[in-house]
């Protein structure tokens, strides 16, 4: 029981001292009562039905509750856990014999305990609205279920940010960044087919259950905000309720975050995720993406309204855009996962030293300090299979019919993603995360910017611009997709030139990086063998 959890009790003692919290209690009470009184009373005095008047206050109250639990609560969790870590108090907890699960739960519910009390202060007003507004339980129960699972997810986000960042300020920024990403940026990707990302928020369930009962006073068109307003979600040939889908997506992310936190509990110096976890997360993302985009691939009636196509994306565009979106999004995810799971040069070095000392040639490929060839290869295999299914389904659904594009050119997409993944693995293991960021800035973005400059100066695309852009490794994916561009043959020709440069650049980089890794390994082996014999 959480109220018996020592860590939760500790936060109840420190965070709920009346002297310290009275300001927040009063502020919440005053803001809530003012909102309810100022919105409800004038409407009733002016003759509006009390039921409608009460229902019209639901939205502002939900916003107040959202600010308290989702925004302030997540901030408390992120900054609180980082302070514990920076002050070294977390180490005390690491050493206690409590179960890791209990420690995590203690912090998860203890750090934002004041926000839960503030949320409690709004409940009498909610009760008033539900009773006077005659809001049916079938409307608010699903909403609050998803609201609380979102709260847990967001607080887990705060915990993860706090556990992975080394400085207090960074944790606040990382958690704010993650919230903006989860709540505002990722849901926008539903417009290009990654629908499941929309269900990380409470918005779909709000649209499904709350908006209809708020009535005309809301003056909001659900479809203006999200793709799914109260509809079921397509997943391959199934249609899943939005609430259930939200639960599935949020639970999956909560499990991932809990696993990250548990790892960090055991040792702060470990990478955020293990290699098997990276592979599983990647596969789950791929399956979700494929499931959502499936109706579009098979030209079903329930196809998504992506790119404002009304569910009927033209063949010329579909064969380029659909694989491109999926290749880019999965590569981006692979990039994040490999960054979090692969060892940096020092961990890699320590792993090699350990292996030498234990008289082993190498570590198991799934160990944290082991090199990432196996996990990168596995992720590449999953991605390649996924892209293969996408291209084959597009072909079988007749998207290529009547087009001049050669479907076999899609092979370049596999080459591109493979080269890119192994290039990134080599980069991370050779130089570590810090220098990778510098690499990304200089070698990924600079050629792209120069290419844009050349295009602007020439007032149109030129061979030179594409050749320069090809020097940026990331362009290899869009260029390989653009080979299938049948309605702009000139652009396709430019893309093929850019692709040639990009592939050659990546190939050269791959050879250099992986030979460097091999040399480093051999050098270290010799060093350690020398040291070993000296020690003996």
């Amino acid at each position, binding site marked *: 029981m959480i109220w018996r959890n*020592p860590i939760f*009790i*500790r936060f109840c*003692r*420190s965070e709920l001292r009346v002297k310290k919290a009275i300001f927040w209690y009063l502020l919440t009470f005053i803001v809530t009562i003012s909102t309810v009184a100022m919105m409800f009373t004038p409407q009733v005095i002016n003759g509006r039905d009390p039921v409608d008047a009460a229902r019209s206050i639901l939205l502002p109250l939900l916003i107040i509750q959202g600010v308290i639990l989702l925004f302030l609560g997540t901030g408390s969790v992120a900054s609180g856990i980082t302070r514990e870590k920076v002050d070294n*108090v977390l180490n005390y907890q*690491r*050493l206690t014999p409590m179960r890791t699960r209990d420690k995590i739960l203690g912090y998860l519910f203890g750090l934002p305990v004041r926000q839960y009390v503030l949320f409690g202060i709004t409940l009498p007003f909610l009760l008033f609205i539900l009773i006077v507004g005659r809001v049916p339980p079938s409307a608010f129960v699903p909403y609050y279920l998803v609201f609380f699972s979102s709260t847990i997810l967001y607080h887990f986000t705060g915990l993860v940010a706090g556990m992975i960042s080394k400085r207090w300020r960074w944790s606040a920024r990382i958690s704010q960044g993650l919230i903006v990403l989860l709540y505002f940026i990722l849901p926008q990707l539903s417009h290009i087919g990654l629908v499941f990302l929309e269900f990380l928020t409470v918005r779909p369930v709000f649209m499904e259950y709350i908006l209809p009962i708020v009535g005309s006073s809301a003056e909001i068109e659900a479809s203006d905000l999200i793709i799914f307003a109260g509809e079921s979600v397509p997943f391959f040939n199934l249609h899943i309720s939005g609430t259930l889908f939200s639960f599935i997506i949020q639970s999956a992310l909560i499990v991932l975050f809990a696993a990250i936190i548990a790892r960090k509990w055991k040792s*702060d110096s470990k990478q955020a995720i293990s290699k098997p976890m990276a592979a599983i997360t990647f596969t789950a993302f791929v399956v979700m993406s494929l499931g959502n985009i499936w109706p579009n691939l098979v030209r079903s009636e329930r196809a998504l309204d992506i790119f404002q196509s009304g569910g009927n994306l033209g063949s010329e565009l579909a064969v380029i855009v659909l694989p491109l979106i999926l290749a880019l999004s999965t590569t981006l995810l692979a990039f994040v996962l490999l960054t979090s799971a692969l060892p940096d040069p020092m961990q890699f070095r320590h792993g090699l*030293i350990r292996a030498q000392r234990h008289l082993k040639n190498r570590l198991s490929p799934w160990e944290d300090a082991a090199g990432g060839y196996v996990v990168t290869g596995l992720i590449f295999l999953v991605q390649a299979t996924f892209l293969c299914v996408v291209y084959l389904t597009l072909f079988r659904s007749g998207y290529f019919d009547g087009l001049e594009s050669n479907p076999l050119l899609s092979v370049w997409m596999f080459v591109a993603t493979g080269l890119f993944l192994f290039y990134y693995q080599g980069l991370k293991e050779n130089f570590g995360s810090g220098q990778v960021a510098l690499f990304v800035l200089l070698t990924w973005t600079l050629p792209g910017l120069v290419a844009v400059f050349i295009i602007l100066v020439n007032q149109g695309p030129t061979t030179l611009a594409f050749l320069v852009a090809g020097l940026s490794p990331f362009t290899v994916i869009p260029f390989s997709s653009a080979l299938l561009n049948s309605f702009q043959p000139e652009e396709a020709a430019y893309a093929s030139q850019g692709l040639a440069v990009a592939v050659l650049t990546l190939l050269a980089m791959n050879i250099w990086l992986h030979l460097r890794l091999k040399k480093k390994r051999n050098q270290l082996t010799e060093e350690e063998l020398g040291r070993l014999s000296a020690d003996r």
Partner: protein
Amino acid sequence: MEPAIQIKDLRVDYGTFTAVSNLSLSIERGEIYGLVGPNGAGKTSTLNVLATLLIPTYGSVQMAGFDLDEEPDKIRARLGYMPDLAPIISNLKVWEFLDLFANCYGLAGSTKSKRVDECLELVGMNESRNTLCGTLSRGMTQRVVLAKTLLHKPDILLLDEPASGMDPLARIDLKDALQAVSSEGATIIISSHILSELSEMATSVGILHKGKLRESGSVQQVLSSLEHVTTRLEVDLVKDRHECLTWLHEKGIQASASDKHNRRIELDIEGGPAAQAALLKRLVEANFVINGFHPVRSNLEDLMRSISNDGSES
């Protein structure tokens, strides 16, 4: 009976810097082992590994009969760890701080209250039990954290510079508390950069320098191994400074009058505390009235430098 702590070939790297190198050590049950070394010697890294908070590059560690690599949780349950600059939860009262950890270690009801009281009493902080931890002085914070470390009666205590910030009385309390805990069978590793501080409470000491264990053994053994170290002494005389200088020169001891104090002599003497004690005895027997006699450069840096030079020469 197997040792309480057995370390074999321990190595800790931070990047390309090796903080602890090939450290092998065996500590018996009930021993108070002093780990002494200057800043950066590798004391905290060693203690962090033993506290299961730092994964070593390699090496094996057995504690309380368990392997650190395989059963860290079993070790943690038997471990009390007090880090350097011991942190505290500033917005809890002293008793709440102890109550939190008593709960975390599974103590409950009257056993818990009794143990919290005992530990507060042991470190002399009973009167401050309702004080907010954030308002305590550095020395008092050290005492509260020590009380917290002792709550669950650990088999092994790891104390990183526990006496820093403590006044002389608190240091005596600390010494008494550690001896009481040790007499109940607990093994204690205590680190410090002040050798004299450790020699008062430790049963054996190890000198760590640049990540390597240079000396290890009983306090007497280690002190005698330092006999060849040159120490600068300041001798304050009530009178007869000139005569004393002459006497010292006759005995072959290089000495000079201090520029700052008109009754002080500065001299270099070879040997550790035993040699210093012998010189003092001879001065007294020669009827010089001594007001003060203290080493000014017998600090650990000098000893370390000496040990380090020896190591490189051999």
